[in-house]
């Protein structure tokens, strides 16, 4: 097992610990396991998550280990799953819920927006909703329009919610544990294209596994990465790419391909947003490309661009440029024309450097 420093509550402590190589799936599964072992109020449920361990295997083995009262299958009702979760959270449990695909969260949207997000506020703090709603997000898996969506902006517009999107196994575990520990509802979006390996957007090249990737080395014990802290995935001086999820890898690939020395900011948490890290980078480079896979219009990139032009107005040498999924449903056969891959990103980086 490789050795690495322990990341604890965001601060890096000095002692060495054993690291285990994990995929994003095993890291998430492990986060559940660790959380359930230390807190008996953590319960896990959703469609196919019990006996079978989830269609992506993120909850594999938990029912066998913790029993069917703490990890169980649910009827196919996203409304019911989240609604029951709200009630359980109000009781004092910590439900960690899986919505099978983010595309299927809409039936639960009312319970998330009108209930989970509003409970603390409307009850004057008397009732709360410490719940995590996990959902695989994003495309790149030939899933067509109902297995590829990135609905994060529909959560970031909702006061009372926190929204998290990890880009690698180590972050996925630490952020998920922080989300479970959080006293408020957290929407936890898992880029499904990253489940088994980093993905730089070159879909026609051989698939890379997490094995041997440094961020696939994960501390098997409990640790949190605090919500609201971005990471600098790549340091650079020419321009800043502000992004999250799968696109963190695409942005890095585009930087290599173009030779443009981009600084890549991995937001990790969209709400609360680490504006300091973002603004420091853009003020340093003077140019900013905002990148996400979700549909462009009213995507979270709009919020980022609005904030960045406001905070960095006097530093910007060109307008903030957004690169995103088109304003169409996610198509099946034209997936790679839809997906903002390294070529499209690279083209726009050049455009931005020339602006």
């Amino acid at each position, binding site marked *: 097992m490789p050795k690495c420093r322990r990341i604890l509550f965001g601060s890096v402590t000095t002692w060495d610990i054993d690291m285990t190589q994990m995929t994003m799936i095993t890291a998430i599964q492990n986060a559940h396991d660790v959380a359930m072992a230390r807190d008996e109020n953590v319960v896990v449920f959703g469609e196919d998550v019990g006996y079978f361990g989830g269609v992506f295997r993120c909850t594999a083995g938990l029912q066998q280990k913790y029993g069917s009262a703490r990890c169980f299958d649910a*009827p196919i009702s996203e409304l019911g799953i989240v609604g*029951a979760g709200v009630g359980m959270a109000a*009781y*004092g449990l910590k439900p960690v819920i899986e919505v099978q695909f983010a595309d299927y969260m809409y039936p639960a949207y*009312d319970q998330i927006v009108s209930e989970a997000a509003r409970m*603390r506020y*409307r009850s004057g703090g*008397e009732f709360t909703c410490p719940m995590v709603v996990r959902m695989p997000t994003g495309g790149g898996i030939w899933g067509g329009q109902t297995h590829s969506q990135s609905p994060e902006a529909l959560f970031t517009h909702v006061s*009372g919610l926190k929204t998290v999107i990890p880009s690698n196994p180590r972050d996925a575990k630490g952020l998920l544990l922080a989300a479970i520990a959080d006293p408020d509802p957290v929407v936890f979006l898992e880029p499904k294209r990253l489940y088994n390996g980093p993905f730089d957007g070159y879909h026609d090249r051989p698939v890379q596994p997490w094995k041997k990737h440094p961020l696939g080395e994960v501390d098997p014990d409990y640790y949190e990465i605090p919500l609201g802290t971005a990471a600098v995935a790549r340091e650079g001086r020419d321009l800043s790419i502000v992004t999250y999820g799968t696109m963190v890898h695409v942005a890095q690939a585009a930087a290599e391909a173009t030779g443009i020395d981009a600084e890549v900011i991995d937001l990790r948490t969209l709400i*609360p947003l680490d504006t300091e890290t973002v603004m420091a980078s853009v003020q340093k480079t003077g140019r900013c490309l905002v990148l996400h896979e979700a549909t462009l219009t009213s995507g979270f990139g709009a919020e980022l661009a609005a904030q960045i032009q406001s905070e960095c107005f006097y530093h910007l040498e060109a307008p903030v440029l957004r690169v995103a999924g088109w304003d169409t449903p996610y198509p099946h056969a034209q997936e790679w024309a839809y997906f903002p891959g390294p070529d499209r990103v690279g083209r726009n980086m050049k455009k931005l450097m020339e602006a």
Partner: protein
Amino acid sequence: MTETPPLSLKVPQPEFRPGDTPDFSGIEIPAAGSVRRPDVDEPADGMRDLAFTIIRVLDDQGNAVGDWADSLSDDEIARGLRDMMTLRIYDSRMMTAQRQGKTSFYMQHLGEEAISCAFQRALHKGDMNFPTYRQAGLLIASGYPLETMMCQIFSNEADPLHGRQLPVMYSSKDHGFFTISGNLATQYIQAVGWSMASAIKGDTKIAVSWIGDGSTSESDFHAALVFASTYTAPVVLNVVNNQWAISTFQGLARGGSHTFAARGHGFGIPSLRVDGNDYLAVHAAAKWATERARRNLGPTLIEHVTYRAGGHSSSDDPSAYRPKSESEIWPLGDPIDRLKTHLIVKGLWSEDRHKQASAEITDMVIECQKRAESIGTLNSGHVPSPRDMFEDVYAEMPPHLVRQRHDVGY
């Protein structure tokens, strides 16, 4: 292929509209005491009939009769009458306060007082109601201070909800009263989840959920029945059928089923239909259903048959869509009158004592109102500070809200 005649859309309509003379003689009302009381562990299949009748205890003379009688002592019954009277007087004061501009909005319970007042008396400390806006009797019967309720109505500085919620959207964890949502029906499935949590923890608390006839059409109602049925959840699922959902009559939500209680049959859930204007019947049914839940026998659905005698809310004028006299000729009578008669028949009460009690309660309510109003009303300006508007969005205020609050001057 045989020719078929043209189709046509059938839209259910109530029998009577403004201008019509309503006549409820067609409604079949079983005699008090005529419906059997099954054992709580009887399988649902055997008691299908209980969803198509009306469980009644108080007969027309005021006697308590039949299998469902005698769930309460004389003292408890007297206290029940007092609860209902308090709720009615409270309602009428608050309606007036709303008209006087002291608050923005109010919703009353006129004619439905028995349901929430009686049900609460079957609950234990620690149980949790998931109410709608028309069950304030749960709070009153559990001893929640009237003055605090009024502070919520007036959105004043003593409002425990800090003026954030619309009037009547109370919340009290201590009194087993879950925070009311302005969105209909959402609480129904939450109650099921709450009760599942109790079962997961191996606790003994149960949940009680509430919904109106009209709101049973919402999705959360279905989710609740699915989850309650699948996990045998320790929850009581109440449907308050007060015949109206704003301007639409119950037939629009009920459709081709004869009753709302029948909805439970699709899920194998034992379902009772009870006279919601009969305090004793409601209490007996509540006791039966809560016992089922406590013994881990699973959910019960109860349809409470009543009539919304007032407007939907302070914004509503029901004379636009139903005959005025409907509430007067409603065949199940008035819940307060009926329980009063019962106590008189039993020799425990008299018209004079009733008048006197009414005056005393009125004084007490006015006293509370004075104190609440002295703290503030919505139009007096003594409302919680805008500073407070930014609290409780999250446990800890994130930077962007700190900035926004700063912008308002705090």
